[in-house]
């Protein structure tokens, strides 16, 4: 039995009624060790978000298997927490209620819930914002609240679907630092989807580069440099060039395919 997340030979084909089936993913295998930070990098439409949703148990596989700590994933579970591209907070709930939403659905008693939520708000730096509503927060604060909501389930894997794509560049960099802080204090594994090379390089222990559709693994790039990383250090610049080249080949391929359609 392997500990952590194991994705073996997973494929996904969408078969919409009356149309050509779409092969989204083909034969993808990834092992994510406990506490490891893995970034899935690929052009849009390569199926990386689909893979994330399959790991979350929200989407079924059409081939292969996904297992966590040796048990096959068939449904959502508290050990895997999902964070969306938009923060997806409920506008009618306060930040505190949003962060505690999953706990309340899981019938954690109010006292215990309040204690955990306060602790989480403090950790993500929102201690003073608990009684505000999402519309009164900045984009970065909203995404912190979403992070707190995901951490509330005490996950062993955080599944993040382009979590910072909607933020401006400065906020994005701060949120990446913040995420690394949170990650190092929980030691949960992270599986994060992005199409930004800079983001991948700043965060990952290992970058998995996807091909254009159908998504397959094109390359795996381990990064050993200690964090925080200097993006202008010579070895990081080399890595960035390499990743960009790999990504550009695939982006061009998917553009060509679109123009043929």
């Amino acid at each position, binding site marked *: 039995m392997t500990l952590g997340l194991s994705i073996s030979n997973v494929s996904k084909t969408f078969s919409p009624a009356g149309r050509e089936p779409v092969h989204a993913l083909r034969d993808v295998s990834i092992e994510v060790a406990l506490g490891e930070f893995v970034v899935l990098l690929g052009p849009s439409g390569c199926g990386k978000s689909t893979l994330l949703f399959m790991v979350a148990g929200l989407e079924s596989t059409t081939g292969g298997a996904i297992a966590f700590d040796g048990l096959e994933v068939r449904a959502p579970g508290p050990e895997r927490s*999902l964070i969306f591209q938009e923060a*997806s907070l*409920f506008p*009618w709930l306060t930040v505190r209620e949003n962060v505690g939403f*999953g706990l309340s659905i899981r019938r954690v008693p109010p006292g215990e819930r309040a204690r955990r939520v306060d602790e989480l708000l403090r950790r993500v730096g929102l201690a003073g914002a608990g009684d505000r509503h999402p*519309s009164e927060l900045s984009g970065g604060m909203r995404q912190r609240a979403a992070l707190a909501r995901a951490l509330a389930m005490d996950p062993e894997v955080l599944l993040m679907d382009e979590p910072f794509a909607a933020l401006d560049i400065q906020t994005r960099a701060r949120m990446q630092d913040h995420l690394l802080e949170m990650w190092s204090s929980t030691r949960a594994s992270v599986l994060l989807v992005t199409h930004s090379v800079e983001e991948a390089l700043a965060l990952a222990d290992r970058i998995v580069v996807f091909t254009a559709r159908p998504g397959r693994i094109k390359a795996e790039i381990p990064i050993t440099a200690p964090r925080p990383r200097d993006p202008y250090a010579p070895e990081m610049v080399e890595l960035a060039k390499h990743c960009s080249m790999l990504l550009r080949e695939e982006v061009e391929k998917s553009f060509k395919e679109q123009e043929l359609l």
Partner: protein
Amino acid sequence: MSARAAAAAFRPAPNGLAGAALLVLGWEAAARAFAGTYLIAGPVDVLAYLSGNGALMARALSETLGNAALGFVAGNCAAILLAAAAQLWPRGRAAIAGLALLVFCLPLVATGPILRVLLGPGPGPQIVLAALAVYYTTFVPLLVGLRAAPASWFDLVRSYGRGPVTELRRVRARAALPYLFAGLQIAAPAAFLGAMVGEFTGAERGMGVLTVRAMRALDVEATWALASVAALVSILAYAGIGALAEMVLRERPPVILSPPGAAGRGAGPARGALVLALAVAAWWIVLEAAGLPTFFAKRPDDFWAAFVTAPDAAAARATLLGALAETAIYVLPGYLAGLLLGAGLAIAILLVPAAAAVALPLAVALRSVPIVTSAPLLVLALGRGAVGTVTLVAIMVFFPSFVACLHGLRQAPGQVLDVFDSYAAGRVARLVHVQVPAMWPAFFAAARMAVPASVLAVTVVEWLATGQGVGSLMALSASLSDYDMLWGSVVAVALLSGAGYVAVGAVERRVLAVYAAEQVAG
């Protein structure tokens, strides 16, 4: 935008007060100008009448309000249950929505006397009619509201291992609240109207009874006083629910309450046939289960016999179709005139923004006036001929069309408007190329919902006053106990207004496919 500003959109702005003051002044002026013609009683006369007959009016009002309130609660509960069922059972959605539409198209004036025989004297029919008048305008926005949420909210609930029921309870129900409130706001005056129509058809007490009496006696002061009280009560109910929404909600109220996809995809012939079959089955089952005698509770086969197989079926058919044709001649011009006037005035007013600031809150409030209660006034003023009927239908359609179009025009995307400004394009160019196209979804949503409303208006005025068309045929059949003809007219009118609704929906889909593809994709 702050939550406060968002919620404020539920209530008419203070500008509305200026508009209302103008309206009252104009009313008094008109009354003075036409003094001696026995047409208009001005605000002063109305107040004088009310101070003299306060006790009578208060008794009638409390009776009608009580029935309207019960109907309001029952109808809206039914709407909530139906919408929840349609949400949890997606395959049944089209059938539920189709049946709900057909029942909404039942002509209240004819359903009234039938309910009267079925339920006996007392408030039963008024309450049922009030419920029938409100449930659809709550049901349709709820169907939309229950789905008006980003997919990730539902993914989140599923990621906690919960299914559709938790999703409905914790997310959809709350996301639909602004839609529910918008529906309730329209429902409050409609319930009052339903209760009054119920009283027109043979109750002992209530505002409707007084209205019929005042009209028969050509009592101008009483007629105007009754219509004024009904209008005031409706505006207060509308404003009250708006205030409640403002306290509860943080969101902006939705603009389009019934987008074309709301009731399920397209209206294919197969779906139509299914809905009709279900309706016939339900009709038969309900009457059989209640064990009602066939003398007055006609079954589908009685209907078939009376209009197809009986020896005098041809004559019955001719009578019914003749009456329907007469009614259609009044409905169509009134309906079209009301729609076009509404859209036209909305567009005109947009060119003079200061006018819009006064007119919109006023129109929103006036939309809540149960127009049918003013039917006797129009008959007094315009006579029992075609002009009065067509005008009433036009007014009934005008207000929702005007309000929807103004809202729609303001939905024009700011960035596109900025592009036009950067080319120094004039107001007219902005209007033609940006704002009018942005108006179409709201315009058609109003046009669709106005079909049953205009049929209601025309049948009420025919019933009460003109002695023509299917409304009068229903009144006649009810008083002669000709239940075959009464049920027959109910079926015919329901089918006709259902067909009109579907036809407008078909035009709407064609237009929106060009101008607002996202509305049709639902």
